[in-house]
């Protein structure tokens, strides 16, 4: 295959003459001689289009597509209505980059506006931005907002029960700064209000918690908002958006900032991404929000139109005074979220949420009943739960995989040896009764 249309020798010579250099090599004179590549790059010779196609086809044959997934821990196997793929695939959306000449792209601005409106409804918040990279980035940006909003603060508290990857991204975000990150311990599988109160010093800018938490348990935030607000700190709750169809939203818990990852809303698991981080907040936080916001207005004819609003927050105006590095968004994936939510509708969304809850509980009841498996904690959960097995979880998972079931996530990959036998199991609306029953029979056989 010919990969591109090259310049002719004449064109190259003309360009070199114009800029006043004698050879292409001279353009690289700033790179020390010792560091320059000598000879050619060690890659195979080109092959024909047909051979490339055949090679890729062979690779795709290696994909495993017939295993039934019970994997969770932040990324879930949900039903994606075909409307999502078809609207995302339209070239007006699919091939366009983030709108820098924003107002000329009314369709994209409208799709962002719809996404923001839906996120505000789900979280009971006043304002959402146009989206962030993922849920972990959203947590880190929420921490930045809190630090910018609370004067003389330098500490972020986060619960032991939030996603371990969120903790890692927080640490990376604040590496090399004077900001202190402090973990609040859990008790019985959820964030402890007692430990929170013990750690609420005047330096605390914000408190980050997650419900359903990393182990799947639903956290009870009674008393949290008052304690945090009495300390003049901000309350940040991360939630799986699907859970908001049956559980209290962040706004209802009195949070100031709502965050999470929208992968469950119409995005496949891919290889872990891309997903979308959502961030929504009370109006008082508006000026400190990261990234962009699409707003609704009217044009000179009085017709509905969309504009990028609050742009002063972005770097091209605030420059070195900007409070965040985020200047783009996950437009295409956020569009998938908006199409997903519009397709399932309000009642459909509640139905999806209910089915997650019910199917997960059906499997849990059978596993703890017939198989006498012990849960990690006796706590209410949404669509995933953690079980303590009598042997190494990763071995059991491998054996289940041989029977075409991706049975769960071994938690020892996130934590210490204490979690060797712990397996996290997620059940979505996509799982059928037959699949759930097969899971029980398979695990019963393996553990026998």
């Amino acid at each position, binding site marked *: 295959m010919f990969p591109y249309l090259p310049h002719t020798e004449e064109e190259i010579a003309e360009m070199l003459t114009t800029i006043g250099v004698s050879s292409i090599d001279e353009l690289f004179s700033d790179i020390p001689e010792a560091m320059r590549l000598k000879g050619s790059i060690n890659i195979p010779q080109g092959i024909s289009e047909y051979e490339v196609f055949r090679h890729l086809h062979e690779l795709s044959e290696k994909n495993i597509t017939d295993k039934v997934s019970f994997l969770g821990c932040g990324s879930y196997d949900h039903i994606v209505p075909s409307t999502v793929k078809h609207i995302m695939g339209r070239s007006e959306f699919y091939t366009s980059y983030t709108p820098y000449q924003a107002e000329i792209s009314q369709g994209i601005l409208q799709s962002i506006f719809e996404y923001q409106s839906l996120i505000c409804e789900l979280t009971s918040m006043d304002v959402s931005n146009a989206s962030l990279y993922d849920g972990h980035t959203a947590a880190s940006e929420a921490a930045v907002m809190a630090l910018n909003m609370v004067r003389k603060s330098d500490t972020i508290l986060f619960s032991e029960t939030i996603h371990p990857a969120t903790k890692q991204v927080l640490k990376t975000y604040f590496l090399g700064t004077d900001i202190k990150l402090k973990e609040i311990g859990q008790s019985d599988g959820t964030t402890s209000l007692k430990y929170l109160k013990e750690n609420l010093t005047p330096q605390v800018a914000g408190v980050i918690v997650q419900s359903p938490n990393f182990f799947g348990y639903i956290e009870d935030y009674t008393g949290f908002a008052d304690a945090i607000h009495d300390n003049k700190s901000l309350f940040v709750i991360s939630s799986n958006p699907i859970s908001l169809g049956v559980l209290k939203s962040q706004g209802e818990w009195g949070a100031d900032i709502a965050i999470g990852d929208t992968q469950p809303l119409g995005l496949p698991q891919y290889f872990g991404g891309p997903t979308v981080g959502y961030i929504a907040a009370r109006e008082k936080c508006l*000026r400190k929000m990261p990234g962009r916001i699409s707003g609704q207005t009217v044009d000179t004819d009085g017709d509905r139109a969309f504009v990028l609003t609050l*742009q*002063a927050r972005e770097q091209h*105006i605030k420059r070195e*005074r900007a409070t965040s590095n985020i200047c783009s968004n996950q437009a295409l994936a956020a569009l998938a979220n908006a199409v997903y939510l519009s397709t399932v509708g309000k009642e459909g969304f509640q139905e999806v949420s209910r089915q997650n809850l019910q199917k997960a509980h059906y499997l849990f009841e059978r596993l703890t009943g017939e198989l006498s498996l012990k849960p990690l904690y006796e706590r209410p959960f949404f669509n995933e739960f953690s079980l303590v097995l009598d042997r190494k979880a990763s071995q059991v998972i491998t054996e289940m995989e041989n029977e075409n079931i991706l049975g769960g996530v071994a938690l020892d990959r996130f934590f210490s040896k204490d979690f060797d036998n712990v397996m996290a199991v997620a059940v979505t609306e996509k799982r059928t009764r037959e699949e759930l029953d097969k899971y029980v029979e398979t695990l019963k056989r393996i553990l026998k």
Partner: protein
Amino acid sequence: MNIPENLKYSDTHEWIRVENSNAYIGITDYAQESLGDIVYVEMPESGEEFSKGDEVGTIESVKAASPIYTPVSGKVVQVNEDLEDKPELINQDPYKAYIFIIEISDSSEIDDLMSAADYNAFVEKEKESH
């Protein structure tokens, strides 16, 4: 360009009006015109103490975000809450739309500030250099 005679001025384009031990502080006509349409004023909080030259807040316009400095040391006793909803008051009448009132801790600092005539010359010079 309006530069009232009865005020004092800083080289960071704040004006100051002294009333007994308090000072009203805002930004000058030249500053508001340079910024363009002001969309947001981030103000200090009452009770906060600052030294002369400290950054106390930020003014955002459609084209820039600029720090607000205090020309004198002291404790903030009041902020102009009208600016929260109507930041454009600064564009309309910058000398009426004060941003904050500070209780002056060292009145000798006032003497270091510019008179209207000095500030006029300072601005003319700054314009030339642009």
